[in-house]
């Protein structure tokens, strides 16, 4: 017996309708999970649902425009909040990955509550999936990392939660998204805290710009290589900024620049993963482009770790 997306959709639309008697907002990042949750909730609640997308300043290249387009296509009532300054202020001086995640989780809820009250919503729908609450821990379970939408929530919250995807893994969410006709069904996972957890050390606008450009190069090159048949498209692939400076030489001049790590993994559910065996000429193109096109980076390394012992994201 495999996962039955159609049955799941019918069941969840009914469940959401029962669970949410009034109005709700949905936290929507434009990723597969929250977009799927948004469409399910929208089917259940119609105009009693408002989707809220927050541009945290920690998004990938062109992400906000793309998400806005997706939500328009899906005819989900939505608002886009531009909140980069608030996030950068809250993250100033913070280097601990868990603190970053908690600050971001709290900030999200603050913004959602601000949007919920004029709309009259008492419920917050989230696209939380199984690995989010599993890895967030609690009781017997150890905390691997604070997922912003679970353990990153403030202790006191006015909004009540509704999480229709709690028991699903990414492959099952994708099956649901396909059945709902969602364009972003195959989009690679992107964590809620965004590029903040792909910068080891303090999050600054300059570092975000570096990792954003580097990630765009990783995505373009890997997608092109996969499209040409040179490799299988990994489950997830991105760049990580390392605050490690090393020596380089640029046009007979000494430089002392930062390092970018390239991460690409194969997985089904995100709960275990193997690093992708990317052909060397693809890695070579990525390296040459990043070190030439992204200012401040003179070294690129490739991450060879599986999960476990590592996790997919670096923080």
């Amino acid at each position, binding site marked *: 017996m495999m996962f039955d997306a159609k049955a799941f959709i019918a069941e969840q639309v009914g469940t959401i309708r029962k669970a949410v008697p009034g109005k709700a907002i949905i936290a929507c990042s434009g990723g597969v999970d929250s977009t799927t949750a948004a469409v399910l909730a929208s089917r259940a609640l119609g105009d009693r649902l408002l989707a809220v997308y927050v541009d945290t300043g920690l998004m990938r290249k062109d992400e906000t425009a793309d998400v806005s387009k997706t939500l328009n296509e899906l005819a989900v009532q939505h608002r886009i909040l531009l909140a980069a300054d608030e996030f950068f202020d809250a993250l100033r001086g913070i280097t601990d990955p868990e603190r970053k995640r908690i600050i971001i989780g709290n900030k999200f809820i603050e913004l959602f509550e601000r949007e919920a009250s004029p709309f009259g919503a008492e419920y917050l729908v989230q696209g939380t999936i199984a690995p989010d609450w*599993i890895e967030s821990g609690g009781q*017997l*379970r*150890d905390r691997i990392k604070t997922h912003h939408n679970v353990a990153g929530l403030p202790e006191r919250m006015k909004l009540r939660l509704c999480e229709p995807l709690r028991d699903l893994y990414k492959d099952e969410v994708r099956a649901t998204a396909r059945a709902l006709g969602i364009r972003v069904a195959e989009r690679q996972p992107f964590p809620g805290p965004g590029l903040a957890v792909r910068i080891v050390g303090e999050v600054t606008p300059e570092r975000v710009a570096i990792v954003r450009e580097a990630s765009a190069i990783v995505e373009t090159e890997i997608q092109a290589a996969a499209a040409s048949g040179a490799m299988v498209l990994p489950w997830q692939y991105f760049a990580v900024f390392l605050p490690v400076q090393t020596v380089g030489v640029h046009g007979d001049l000494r430089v002392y620049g930062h390092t970018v790590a390239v991460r690409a993994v194969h997985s*089904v559910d995100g*709960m*275990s*993963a*193997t690093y992708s065996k990317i052909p060397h000429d693809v890695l070579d193109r990525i390296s040459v482009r990043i070190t030439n096109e992204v200012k401040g980076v003179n070294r690129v390394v490739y991450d060879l770790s599986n999960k476990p012992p590592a996790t997919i994201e670096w923080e």
Partner: protein
Amino acid sequence: MRVSVIDNGGQWTHREWRVLKYLGVETKIVPNDTPVSQLNGLDGLVLSGGAPRVGIDPEKMGRNGEYLDAFYAPILGICAGHQFMAKHLGGDAAPAKVPEFGKSVVEIHQPDVLFQGLPNRFEVWESHNDEVTILPRDFVALASSQNCDVQAMRHRDRPLFGLQFHPEVEDTQFGADIFRNFLKLCENPK
């Protein structure tokens, strides 16, 4: 068929539930302090893994001991569940000399129904700090890896099985087959 997963706090407890569900089993994740009397009517139990030291700390293993003593149908202990099974039934478990995380290879040296139809060597996924150090009396070791002697064990007479590796993890080869073999035993306990 109804088989529940006892939650000892593992990262992959919910994966065990998913694999069982995909195999058509009626399954639930239940807390490990559930009285054995509430498990009446089940055809089998899976004792999940848990955080470091959980398998060798009886305090954290709730009523797992009760299940091993009084549950009437087959039990599959995984990781912490396997370690606790050894310790509770007279063997021992302790911090491993070489913990294993991620990819490993197991070798089956004692054929068993649990591994029916499987090759003798295959790739598995591990994640453990502790291991079974002394096999309980009445148990047979079935498989090992380079750094861990007891990757699998079973009771000689009762349908009790322990696995150090994680058959529920997507990257483990033949994981679903191992569950299928276990479910056959649940259907037809000897």
